[in-house]
Every structure is written in structure tokens, then in C-alpha cells.
């Protein structure tokens, strides 16, 4: 039993719904009690979907348990096939129905539908949403892809499939548009995109492409590996998030297709590298960043933050346990131990400890950061209505790199603003205790400043035990901008303790500063 206040991922059948809702011509009959129908609102409210997800729930009740839930399931399969006329039917159980062991697959087959029936076994007490999506997509591909068949007519030139985008995916809609355009520039034809927008007939045509582009390994790696084994289709490994990764991806794709990468390299719209080099961006150097999200976005965004913006990664983690190995390896590059956790309290504690200047995370981290008064940008699911902006806003490809530049930089104070604040911080009109106006903490900071004046050493940052602060050192430490002050204070105290210093003086402060200098 695990105590959970908030969760990063839903149950695996919600992952299956994300695949079903992305596709055309499929219907999912889910053996589940009525409460499970809440999942519809994820699609209709968060993604603002204009149609209900193609899901029928059996909504069995306690009184059915003693009677015949199996008949109920069969009836719903038959009714759904008649009403929705899908080309393929997915069937499965949610957590409760898993316990009553009705065998949805066997029951659905016994109905004798004329369409393919794909039975999903998604262990709800072991697995989670992304695993469920991945398994569902894999089962669909495994059962419907016409491996070994030859295409009716073969189109000229190299072709690929794009695999991974689903309903309720983080920026999937715009990533797909961006990558499709990029691939088009190379003269490569997109055979099928799946699951998003694909019909069962499209899935059958998957093996007719030369290779697969895997955009979201959490969803599509398993299916792509299957296609590699069974249909001999190689797949891409590079995730085109960030400028450098996009260029590397272009080369990888061009290489797989046997074409020249040049038409898709260094296009005019790739502004992010120049923006990063422009002088105003100097202040971004070494900004402490904490990154948390699904494995793909966390790894990629940490790279962008470190290499394309010059931030310092002070924390990297994921809730995707399936990809823990990859994230651990990546974190080592930054001298960090990866945080693999799906307990948001643990993530909150890690962020507090790391004292970052910006957090890149999910909606959960956005709330944690808000609580801690740290700027934040959202980079990963679990999704929120704000993650489906009306405007075009990919995170993949060159435009995606531009979007990431803006997303990571805008929450921070702009460079010039920060410079001016430093210049004027000794002026009486300014107080470094004032937090940036866009964080909305002004009132709080003023109260805090007043409190500091009244009872100097007992402010909230000072530790209860540990070395005492001399007045001049105390005055000096308050000149440090608020967002690094507590870190400086802790480092100084740590240094003092290490060196057996009982009273922190100005000298101690600067010795510590020199000791910890980057």
C-alpha cells in the first residue's frame, strides 16, 4: 500500500484511452464501474476534445457482482459495435474489473464480431498510465500491422512512419506538425502517423515504410522495437528537443533515408542559438535549474538548459520508473544523483534542498515552485488545460527550441532588469528583500523586511542551531539577492562548522564564498 496525495500518472487503462482517443475507427469497451467514467473529462475538458473518447464503460454495480457481469460485458460489446461501427475493438478491464476476472478478451471474442478484437491486459496494481499506453499501442500494432505483406502500390522515394503522439500528450499536436514539416523538407514521405489520427487500416500499412521515427519512447518504443524485429524497420533514437538535438535528429533521419540532411539544417527560423549567444543572455550563465518530468522531456530539457542556455543542472529526476536507468545515466553527467520518484512530497523536498533559481517540471512542480516562490516552466505531462495552448507551441524541432528558449527565460528576471537591480540595490528605494513583481510576493517580502529590521538574527533563513552571525556579516549577507541568499547562508554556516568557527564574521562570509566559488 502506498500513500498518495497526488499522482503523476493515472492507471494503465487511461493510457489505453489516450491511444484509443487518438485513433480513428477504434472503440474501447472497458469493463469498469461507473466512477471510472470520470476519465472522459480528461479529454473533453483538459484537451477540449469536441467528441467523447471512443470508450464504453460497462458500469457494473455491486448487485451485478452476484449475478452476471459477463453478460453485461458481452451486451455492451455488441451494442457498442452496432452503435459506433468501429473497424477494430479494444477490450479490457479497469482495476476493479481486473479483480473479478471476467476475461474481457474471451468474452468479446465469443460475441463473434466481424472486426478484429484486441484484448488488453493492463495490470492496474502494478503498472501506470504510460505503460498502459505503450502496451496498448504495441498490441494494436502487433495484431493489425500487415507484416510480410507487400504494399498494393509502392510510392517512389524514401518513407517513414511517425510513432508516439497520443491524445492528452504534452504538446503532441504541435510537435507532430513541426516534425512532419521537418521530414517533408528532406523529401521523405510520411507513410503513417500513429496512434494520433491513424485508423486500423493505417496501422496495417505501417510495415510499408522504410523506417520509424519514434517521438515519444514512453509510448512508442515497444511498438517500434517490434516493427524492427518483425518488419526490419530501423527506428530513430534521437529525440528532437532543443536545437542541437534537432540537428542530430535531422542527420539521423537523413542517414536512415539515405538523403542529404542539408535542406533541414540551420533554417532561418532557428533563432534560439543566437538568442542564447546574444549579450543580454549572459545573466543566464550558471542559473541553477531543477528538472523533473517524464524521462524523455526531463532528459531533453536538462540538455537544453545546460548546453543551449548555459544553466547549471542542480537536480534531475523523473516519475517514469521504466526509464530510470536512462535518467540516472544522464544525471551523472551533471554530477547529480537522479531523483526517481512518484511521490510529489519527495520531489518538493528535493527541490527545496537543491534551492534552484528555476524549476522545469510538470504542473505539480509548478505548484511546488509557486509555494517556494521560484520561477517555473512546465515541460512535461501530467497535462493541464494550459498545456493545450490555442497558439502553435511545439517543443520539438527548431520552432520547439525557440519555444523552449522563451519558456525557460521568461519566468526569470530579464537580464537587464536583474543588472539594474544589482546596481541600485544599495539605494534606499530598493530593497533586495523585494521579490520580483511577477512572482506576486511583494507584500510578503515587505513584511519580511520589516521583521528582519526588528529582530535581526532570528529571521526565517537563520538556522536554529549552528554558528552565530556577527552583525556586520549579517548585514552583508542581506545584500545578497533573495533567491540565492538562503543558499549562501547555508553554505557559510556549513563552512563555519567544517572549520570549527563559532561566530561568522565578514571574513568567514567571504572565505566561504571563495571556498564554494564555481
Amino acid at each position: 500500500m502506498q500513500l498518495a496525495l497526488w499522482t503523476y500518472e493515472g492507471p494503465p487503462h487511461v493510457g489505453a484511452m489516450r491511444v484509443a482517443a487518438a485513433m480513428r475507427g477504434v472503440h474501447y469497451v472497458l469493463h469498469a464501474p461507473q466512477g471510472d467514467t470520470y476519465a472522459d473529462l480528461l479529454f473533453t475538458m483538459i484537451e477540449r476534445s469536441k467528441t467523447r473518447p471512443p470508450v464504453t464503460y460497462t458500469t457494473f454495480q455491486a448487485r451485478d457482482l452476484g449475478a452476471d457481469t459477463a453478460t453485461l460485458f458481452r451486451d455492451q460489446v455488441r451494442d457498442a459495435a452496432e452503435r459506433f461501427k468501429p473497424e477494430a475493438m479494444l477490450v479490457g478491464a479497469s482495476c476493479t474489473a481486473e479483480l473479478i476476472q471476467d476475461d474481457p478478451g474471451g468474452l468479446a471474442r465469443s460475441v463473434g464480431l466481424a472486426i478484429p478484437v484486441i484484448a488488453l491486459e493492463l495490470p492496474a496494481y502494478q503498472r501506470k498510465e504510460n505503460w498502459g499506453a505503450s502496451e496498448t499501442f504495441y498490441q494494436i500494432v502487433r495484431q493489425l500491422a500487415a507484416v510480410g505483406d507487400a504494399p498494393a502500390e509502392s510510392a517512389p522515394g524514401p518513407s517513414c512512419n511517425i510513432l508516439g503522439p497520443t491524445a492528452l500528450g504534452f504538446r503532441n499536436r504541435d510537435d507532430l506538425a513541426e516534425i512532419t514539416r521537418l521530414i517533408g523538407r528532406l523529401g521523405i514521405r510520411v507513410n503513417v502517423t500513429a496512434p494520433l489520427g491513424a485508423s486500423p487500416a493505417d496501422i496495417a500499412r505501417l510495415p510499408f515504410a522504410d523506417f520509424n521515427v519514434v517521438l515519444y519512447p514512453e509510448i512508442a518504443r515497444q511498438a517500434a522495437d517490434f516493427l524492427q524485429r518483425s518488419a526490419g524497420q530501423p527506428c530513430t533514437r534521437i529525440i528532437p528537443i532543443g536545437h542541437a538535438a534537432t540537428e542530430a535528429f535531422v542527420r539521423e533521419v537523413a542517414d536512415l533515408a539515405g538523403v542529404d540532411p542539408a535542406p533541414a539544417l540551420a533554417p532561418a527560423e532557428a533563432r534560439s542559438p543566437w538568442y542564447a549567444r546574444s549579450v543580454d543572455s549572459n545573466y543566464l550563465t550558471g542559473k541553477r535549474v531543477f528538472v523533473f518530468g517524464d524521462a524523455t522531456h526531463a532528459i531533453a530539457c536538462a540538455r537544453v538548459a545546460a548546453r543551449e542556455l548555459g544553466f547549471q543542472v542542480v537536480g534531475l529526476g523523473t516519475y517514469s520508473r521504466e526509464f530510470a536507468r536512462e535518467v540516472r545515466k544522464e544525471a551523472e553527467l551533471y554530477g547529480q544523483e537522479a531523483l526517481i520518484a512518484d511521490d510529489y512530497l519527495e520531489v518538493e523536498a528535493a527541490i527545496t534542498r537543491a534551492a534552484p533559481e528555476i524549476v522545469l517540471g510538470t504542473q505539480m512542480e509548478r505548484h511546488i515552485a509557486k509555494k517556494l516562490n521560484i520561477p517555473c516552466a512546465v515541460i512535461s505531462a501530467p497535462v493541464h488545460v494550459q498545456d493545450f495552448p490555442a497558439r502553435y507551441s511545439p517543443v520539438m524541432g527548431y520552432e520547439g527550441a525557440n519555444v523552449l528558449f522563451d519558456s525557460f527565460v521568461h519566468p526569470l528576471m530579464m537580464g537587464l532588469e536583474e543588472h539594474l537591480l544589482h546596481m541600485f540595490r544599495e539605494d534606499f528605494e530598493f530593497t533586495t528583500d523585494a521579490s520580483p513583481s511577477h512572482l506576486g510576493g511583494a507584500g510578503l517580502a515587505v513584511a519580511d523586511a520589516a521583521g528582519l529590521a526588528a529582530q535581526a538574527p532570528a529571521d526565517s533563513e537563520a538556522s536554529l542551531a549552528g554558528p552565530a552571525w556577527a552583525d556586520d556579516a549579517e548585514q552583508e549577507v542581506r545584500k545578497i539577492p533573495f533567491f540565492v541568499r538562503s543558499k549562501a547562508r547555508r553554505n557559510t554556516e556549513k563552512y563555519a562548522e567544517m572549520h570549527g568557527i563559532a561566530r561568522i564574521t565578514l571574513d568567514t562570509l567571504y572565505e566561504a564564498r571563495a571556498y564554494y566559488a564555481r
Partner: protein
Amino acid sequence: MSVTVEKSPEIAPPPVLRQRGQREVFCGLTGIVWLHRKMQDAFFLVVGSRTCAHLLQSAAGVMIFAEPRFATAIIGERDLAGLADANEELDRVVGELLARRPDIRVLFLVGSCPSEVIKLDLSRAAQRLSRNHDSVRVLHYSGSGIETTFTEGEDACLATLVPGLPVSTDGADLLVVGALADTVEDQFRRLFAAMGVVRVGFLPARRAAEPPSIGPHTRFILAQPFLAETARLLAKAGLKRISATMPLGAEGTRAWFTAIAGALDIPPSRVQEVTEIPYRRAESALRRMHAHLSGKSIFFFRDSQLEIPLARFAANELGMRLTEVGTPYLHRALIAEDLARLPTGITLSEGQDVERQLDRCRAIRPDLTVCGLGLANPLEAEGLTTKWSIELVFTPIQGFEQAADLAELFARPLRRRARLTV
């Protein structure tokens, strides 16, 4: 999936359409979202699956800031395989939780579909945990979707509080049953005081550890229509129920207060006098809304059991035209006064086959459709105007001062549609 049309012997009640099929509705766990706000010293621990946790967080939406006063003990594979004794695990999780939250006085263990299917005995667990944790009262109820529909979760929660109500000869004269927003509760208290009813208890109380006391003389009245089990237990404890319309709208609220006065031997003139000003205020505010809503047709998908009282309000106080009024359950006795005031020529439906209810809604094309969050945007995309039913549960709508707010919930979607040119 059978259809039966029941003709009841009462005075020309509308026919009731009963269908069985997919029900599109929340389970009783959802009640935690408003109950935990109401009882500030209570914590709700769902013993369930990841789905339960996901439902709660999806229904609670953005209330993520503070550490919430609800959580899920997620049953894992080990608990099912019997490798870990589920009771020991539960004790461990509760211990962890109470160590984190020493401010908690009442802990509700909330049963879910999986905990009920595996027959985890939460009532015994609650007794055991109450013994082991001195300062905390541990109670248990079921919010599972195989037993409870949406607002029935509140019913189950309040029902579990009934046996713990202290009994005394100077207990409340009046017990108001059903979670109300604090502002509504305060307004009602003021009106009761002016009427001369001093000893009034509210269930649930703002602090679950300080429940209202009752006595053999206590009369109770429902402020929410979905509290069948709570009402049954109170009646069993010897309390007499006051039957009234639900306190929605100017008329509904006045009838509610009048019924209370009648039961407590307060002269009708006194009620008239006390409620006159707020009644006039509500009525004149409603008259203004009348212009926007009168003659507009309205369709209720089944959701919260508030549908029939809401339909009564919409028809009689706003002049709206009822089409189909769906309800998950029709507890005739509890809503008799609202039911009796419904106009003729409408369809009542109990239970649900959501696909066929959608077909009927599309055929009628009402001016306003009251439905759940899963249906609202798809219906809007089909050109229908909708109101989320869940807002009618979360928003303070009871009482004189909220009558216009309630009307506004119906009027705004229509006004918005008229205003937009895109």
C-alpha cells in the same frame, strides 16, 4: 436493456422512464472534494487504487497548493497477492499520515470499488485504528462506484456520523442535514435566530470532532435531496423529519423555512416577517433573470439527485420549460414537495443509458442542457448550450441570497452564446 414506463397512482405524476445501460457519472468518492473543505479537522483516506487517486485529483482540479486533507492508500500487487497483510499495511499508512498531520481529529477511511471487491473490512479497521490512536476518531464509509453515485458519497459520510451524535435532553431543536457552504449556513443561522429557533445543529458540523447534539425532541430537515440513508438513520434514532421543498430559489427557500416553523410551532406571521426582506430581495433579483430565461427549454442529464428540485426552481421561479429531467435515483418521499410542484408534460428519467439519453437530448435540442463534464464540450461542439452540473454541487446555491446566483448559473451560458460572434 429494458425500458419500463411506470404509471404511479399519485395525482398525475409525470411518467418515469427507466433505462439501463452505461451510466456517465462520478462515484461517491467525489464528495470528498467538498466534504474536506467543510470539515476542516477531518481527513479522508481512500483505500483504493491508482484510479481512485486519479479521479480525486481530476475532480479536485487545481486545489493542489496546500497539502490536501485527502489522500489515497493505493492498493498494490503485494496487498492483493497476500504477501503483505492489507490490514497491517493500512495501519502503517495511517500511522504515517497521522504523524504528518497531528491536526487531524477525525479520519474517514473511505471504501472504494477495489477495497469492496477484495472485502477489506474497513469498519473493523476503523475500530482498531481508533483504539490505537487516542486523539483521533476513525470512521468508515463507502464511496465506491459499485455502491454509490456521486452525491451518495456525502450521504454515506453523513450516515456514518449519525451514531456518533451526542444525545442529550437539551440537544438541538432543529438539525439541518446536508453540507452547505459556510456563508449559507451563517445566513440560515441568522434567520433561525430571528425566528426564535436558538438551538440549531448542522450536520456536518464545521469541526467533525464537535458534532451537534440531538435529543428525542429534535426535528431534522434536509438541505440536500440526496441524503436517503442519513435520513433513514436519523428517523431510526427517533428524530422526525420535516418535509419541505429544497431551499432553492425565493419560493423554495421560503417554503423550507415555513415548513420548519410549522414543525416547531412558530406562527406563520413570524416566518413571513423574518423572511420578508431577503425574500423580496431574491424575488426581485430573480425577476430580472426571468427576462433571459423565461420560455427557454432545459434538459437535465442525471447526475447529482439535485435535478428535480432544480427543475422545480427553473420551471416555477424562472419560467423555463422542462423537457427531460434525469435523476440517478428518485427518492419520492424525500423530494415529494418538489416533485408535487413540477409542471405536467415532462419526462422524468431514472437510471441511465447515456447513449440513448444523448439521442433524446439531440432530438429535443433544448436551449440549455445540464450535464456532466464529460459531455459538456462535445454537446457544445454539436451546437447545444450546456451548464456543468458539478458546478451546481460545488457552488453555494441554497437560500434567499444565492437564488440569483443559481439563476445566473443557468443564464450565463445562454448570455455568453448570444454575445460571442465567433
